[in-house]
């Protein structure tokens, strides 16, 4: 039996039944990572020994008849935006290169208690800012379906690792589409839960009112399994919902009869790739055949989603990333690049400090401290992160707050109301997750705005705080995955998973796999 070929659900069952050991399972995936990662660059950190040791421990406990968690032995990859006390957490940034948090994220702790086996930390766009995973300080991720193409972002590493069978399940984060869009471009299933459904404690913040953690796997059923472990109230997160977590796996097998699915005509404007449009329409047809009804709905303010998002997110980010200043952790730089002007090497002297101050002042800094801040942040952050910090700082600054940030918050309310109004007449909203299939690496990197537009279909979900899932609904002629997205009212994850699962019982797009590593089209 091949662990790499099993779904997470089947793998967990096989592990429970003893058809495979946790060590065998972990070994299979770790070997796969070793073989495949050089071409894909999905992983930033793999700790083979720790994973195998953990797996061995689980096997020993099971043999001894001791209780093991519901995910015992399941290999899981974690986006490097999640704090892990035993692995570095870098957010794919030079700013946090080698950083080790002294605590686990809530989601990480839950998965540990469930006896998942962490195989490593996945690559991402730096600080979750990007739609192609080209903003990583540690190299881009290559789409397993075509290595010359991007996997999407910012959870590009997580998406690619599942698509390339490097892990059955990965955890990602989604602020404006960062789970759903890469899932769509990589032919896998990704769920962004309702805001507050999963704790954000230990999720390195990008935009606090938009960020959510979610599962990425080959199927809705696998996502449902993981959601049972990671969802739930955390008193350490003030925005965490107290609503009880349903048994998502039990709720999957329900027919779609009578489920009303909205279709937004504006989604099909010019700019939507014709093959994608076709794939999406076919998906509607499948859902209809399964008993759902499709109705036109309007989201009148949808076209304002991108500018609203690209104000709110950078504003919150500019504040969330202020802590990366070289003072208490992270990258510190006190001298100009190539220079060496440590203010106080191993107990510096006042004379040195005064000289440093003079030199810094000559360079235009008001003090060595400010110079440290400015240089550390200039060195530590990549260009996209800097751009968003600047944009956010500008939009919050005196004289601009009302026109930009406050304005965006008002439009956000209108966008949210659009969704709530739409959900009066439909139970789900379906449509594309991305305007195009996976684009070429380097295709959009010269034009920040062009890159922002890849989030066109996904930002509304985060702005409204509702849930969304994307899954494959077809392939282009050139063999690239096409994704379909469903969005739902708050806390309707069961319906999202159920609908996606029903679709996946009737189709097998989600079972397709890219050619073996090294054979992907260059």
């Amino acid at each position, binding site marked *: 039996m091949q662990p790499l070929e099993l779904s997470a659900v089947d793998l967990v069952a096989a592990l429970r039944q003893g058809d495979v050991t946790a060590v065998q399972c972990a070994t299979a995936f770790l070997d796969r990572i070793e073989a495949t990662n050089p071409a894909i660059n999905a992983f930033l950190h793999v700790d083979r020994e720790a994973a195998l040791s953990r797996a061995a421990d689980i096997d020993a406990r099971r043999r001894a008849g001791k209780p093991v968690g519901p995910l015992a032995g399941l290999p899981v990859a974690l986006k490097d935006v999640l704090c892990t006390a035993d692995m570095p957490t870098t957010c794919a940034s030079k700013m946090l290169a080698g950083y080790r948090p002294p605590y686990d994220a809530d989601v990480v702790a839950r998965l540990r208690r469930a006896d998942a086996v962490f195989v490593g930390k996945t690559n991402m766009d730096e600080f979750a800012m990007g739609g192609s995973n080209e903003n990583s300080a540690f190299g881009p991720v290559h789409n397993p379906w075509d290595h010359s193409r991007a996997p999407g972002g910012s959870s590009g590493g997580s998406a690619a690792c599942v698509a390339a069978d490097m892990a059955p399940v990965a955890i990602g984060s989604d602020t404006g589409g960062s789970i759903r869009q890469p899932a769509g471009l990589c032919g896998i299933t990704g769920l962004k839960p309702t805001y507050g459904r999963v704790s954000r404690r230990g999720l390195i913040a990008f935009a606090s009112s938009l960020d959510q953690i979610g599962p990425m796997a080959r199927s809705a059923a696998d996502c449902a399994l993981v959601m049972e472990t990671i969802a739930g109230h955390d008193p350490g997160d003030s*925005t965490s919902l107290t609503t009880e977590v349903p048994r998502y796996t039990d709720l999957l097998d329900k027919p779609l009869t009578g489920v009303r699915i909205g279709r937004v005509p504006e989604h099909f404007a010019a700019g939507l790739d014709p093959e994608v449009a076709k794939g999406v329409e076919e998906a509607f047809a499948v859902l209809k055949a399964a008993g759902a009804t499709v109705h036109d709905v309007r989201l009148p303010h949808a076209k304002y989603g991108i500018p609203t998002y690209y104000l709110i997110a950078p504003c919150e980010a500019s504040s969330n990333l202020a802590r990366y200043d070289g003072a208490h952790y992270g990258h510190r730089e006190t001298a100009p690049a190539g220079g060496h002007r440590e203010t106080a090497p191993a107990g510096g002297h006042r004379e040195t*400090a005064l000289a440093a101050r003079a030199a810094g002042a000559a360079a235009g800094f008001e003090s060595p401290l400010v110079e440290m801040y400015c240089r550390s942040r200039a060195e530590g952050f990549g260009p996209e992160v800097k751009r968003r910090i600047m944009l956010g700082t500008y939009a919050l600054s005196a004289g601009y707050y009302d026109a930009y940030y406050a304005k965006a918050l*008002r439009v956000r309310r*209108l966008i949210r109301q659009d969704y709530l109004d739409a959900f009066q007449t439909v139970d789900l909203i379906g449509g594309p997750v991305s305007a195009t299939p996976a684009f070429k690496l380097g295709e959009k990197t010269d034009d920040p705005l062009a890159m922002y537009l890849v989030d066109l279909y996904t930002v509304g979900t985060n702005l409204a705080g509702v849930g969304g899932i994307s899954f494959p609904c077809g392939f282009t002629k050139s063999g690239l995955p096409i994704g379909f997205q469903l969005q739902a009212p708050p806390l309707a994850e069961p319906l999202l998973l159920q609908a996606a699962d029903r679709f996946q019982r009737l189709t097998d797009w989600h079972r397709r796999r890219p050619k073996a590593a090294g054979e992907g089209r260059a």
Partner: protein
Amino acid sequence: MGTESRTSAAARPLSSADVAKVASLARLALGDAELARMTGELSKIVGFVSMLGEVDTSATAPLAHPLDTQNVFRDDVPAESLTTAQALQSAPRHDGECFLVPAVLGDSGAA
């Protein structure tokens, strides 16, 4: 408190002086070439997001939280703190007790 007026200034193209001021607020050192490029990029982006001005929001309150939750508290009960070693473990410079940063000689810092 006394911050400047927060009411709107009309959207206008950004000058490199504007951008330099923002960079200073954001504590980002920008070289000349970077400043020029950033000015162009930010101008374009700000121009783009200014389309929100089209939307009539006169009757709409801002939405800062997507949740309706209120009144989330914790009890005043001590929880475990980190050890000093843990607190300092990622500090670029420390002396075993405190974080070390370049002194701001003769300044008292922000309010």
